[in-house]
């Protein structure tokens, strides 16, 4: 009993995994009757993709210059985070990031200044502003997935009209926390979208070594929830499939696992050297599938976008980034003494003592 690459074996019943959902092909052709959003929305999406891209690029540059700490850019994967964020309602739905989702976080309401501060290693970058439905980035792979499930479950219990989305990578699907949380989500029918960005790598570990499952979407079978594979570089597909999953969740029908096929066009983190393990042609192969190019091609064809509009958009994004970066640099640097006040609502006697020591009051 041998299965073919894309087949799943159920006690001898072999099932073909359906092909990934795509609405825009690489050339920007619409592969559906209708685009899932208006041209205006698509332009807004394009701008968010671009902001994310330029933000990441700038941060890498600043990191190389020593002005930022280790960071994980989302270059090439922006359609995943932006498209899924577009399917949410900022005022009630939660966006729970791993560490590579700046583009989507910015779209969902994280102030740009804070995103800079985060990458500067400032604790203020982690303080979620009142009203922004988001958790701070999580450096531990998959550890936030149960949080997202818990939030969704809690919203449901309180009859608050909100859903949550958790982003994570292909590597994260090997972690116990992913499975345990997804299984729980199925049991409580939590209004949560489990969004896996399969970018083919977990640092140097290729997708093929992460799991023998031909698709990651099929892991949904383990939880009794729907799983669906999509083209993650296609903003329309991401938006539309997420939107349907959000609708489903809002209607009380429970969680959905989405596997978005994408690629890490940038780097794992600023601390990694992919030349040691990544076949160089792969990145080249994927460059043409860039989510930004693809959307531009589509919108150009529709007459909504052209090189001039593109330039203007670039200039606007640049100005926005420059202003926020200036603000971030001017932002006051918190004192170590303050950090003792963030452990508990009230400092313990020992923390108070240690604070005094750290502030030199008892040198």
């Amino acid at each position: 009993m041998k299965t073919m690459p894309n087949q799943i074996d159920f006690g001898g019943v072999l099932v073909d995994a359906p092909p990934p959902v795509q609405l825009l092909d690489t050339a920007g052709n619409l592969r559906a009757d209708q685009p899932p959003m208006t041209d205006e929305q698509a332009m807004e999406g394009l701008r968010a993709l671009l902001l994310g891209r330029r933000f990441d690029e700038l941060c890498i540059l600043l990191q190389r210059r020593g002005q930022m700490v280790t960071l994980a850019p989302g270059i090439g994967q922006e359609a995943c985070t932006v498209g899924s964020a577009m399917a949410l309602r900022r005022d009630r739905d939660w966006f729970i990031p791993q560490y590579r989702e700046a583009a989507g976080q910015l779209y969902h309401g994280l102030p740009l200044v804070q995103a800079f501060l985060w990458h500067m290693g400032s604790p203020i970058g982690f303080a979620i502003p009142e009203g922004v439905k988001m958790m701070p980035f999580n450096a531990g792979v998959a550890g936030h997935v149960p949080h997202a499930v818990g939030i969704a479950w809690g919203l449901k219990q309180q009859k608050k009209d909100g859903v949550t989305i958790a982003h994570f990578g292909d590597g994260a699907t090997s972690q116990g926390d992913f499975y345990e949380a997804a299984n729980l989500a199925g049991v409580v029918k939590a209004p949560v979208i489990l969004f896996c960005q399969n970018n083919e790598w977990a640092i140097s570990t290729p997708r093929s070594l992460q799991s023998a499952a031909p698709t990651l979407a099929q892991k949904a079978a383990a939880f009794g929830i729907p799983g669906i594979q999509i083209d993650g570089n296609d903003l329309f597909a991401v938006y539309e499939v997420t939107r349907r999953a959000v609708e489903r969740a809002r209607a009380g029908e429970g969680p959905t696992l989405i596997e978005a096929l994408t690629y890490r066009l940038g780097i794992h983190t600023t601390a990694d050297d992919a030349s040691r393990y990544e076949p160089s042609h792969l990145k080249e192969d994927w460059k043409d599938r860039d989510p930004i190019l693809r959307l531009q091609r589509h919108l150009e064809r529709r007459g909504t976008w052209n090189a001039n509009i593109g330039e203007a958009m670039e200039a606007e994004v640049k100005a926005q980034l420059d202003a926020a970066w200036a603000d971030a640099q001017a932002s006051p640097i918190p004192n170590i003494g303050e950090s003792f006040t963030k452990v508990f609502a009230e400092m313990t006697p020992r923390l108070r003592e240690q604070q005094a020591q750290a502030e030199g009051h008892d040198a």
Partner: protein
Amino acid sequence: MREVTIVEAVRETLAYEMARDERVMVLGEDVGKTGGVFRATDGLYETFGRDRVFDAPLAESAIIGSAIGLAVSGMIPIAEIQFMGFTHNAMNQIAEHLARMRYRSWGSMPLPVTIRTPYGGGVRAPEMHSDAFEAFFTHCPGLKVVAPATPADTKGLLLSAIRDPDPVMVLEPLRGYRLIKGEMPDGEYTVPIGKAHVAREGADCTIIAWSAQVEVAKRAAEEADKQGVSVEVVDLRTLVPMDMETVCESVAKTGRVVVLQEANKTSGFAAEVIASIHEDDDCFYALKAPMVRVCGPDTPYPVQYFEEEYLVTPDKALRAVLKTVNA
């Protein structure tokens, strides 16, 4: 005031607070219909329904991880881990996420989560069901840790824990669940987190203990009395933050210290107690003899054959008292 057992104190406190505040919910393995394997949640399912008394899938990490999310969403979750040994399975969620979220989010994301778990051995349970590694939780910044020894303190500390804006581990003395009985105030009753309690006054030596060891200490003290040695027993009640004031007052009075710890000796919480007293100048200079730890040996918790020999007994504690008094 009524006389109740520890497990009754837990149950009544949960019922009390759940009736008062509808954001409070209980989740854990078998907390529902069967009322928990120790019956600590007995009757809650019937009163508050499945949503608020949730029989979770068998997944400790998901229990704690989802409790974090529940708290973020506005609920006040009380997670039960069926036996302390299985908190190991949730360690990543407890130590890296639950404990650190307020700090990570620079104060923007406090987590009012309570974790309850039966703690310690002495009931001839199978392996992994008698663990006592409170020391680890006390080493996780951002976690408070309480370990009550009496029904009243169980109520008072549990209620404080549930209402605390920060995560609190409530370690319940497993072997005391039914064995330890005591008066418990009705209605509103809290014990402040961070305050120790002199469970017995004495003049010659202080025994510092927490949870089930307080009983052991008291019995040793009674024996010591017969031998003309007057022992004071300090029940720490809270391990983090530890109440150094009460401890130091007692040490100043007696000048001699014995610390009881059920866990295996090396790197247990008794070491922290001793180091803390040692480095407190007032305490230190009051000492008339070296302090002594009485702990479990550095073997894993044994199978049932050796259980009694493994545990700290009044007799072992007494010997330590006499040793330090005669030093």
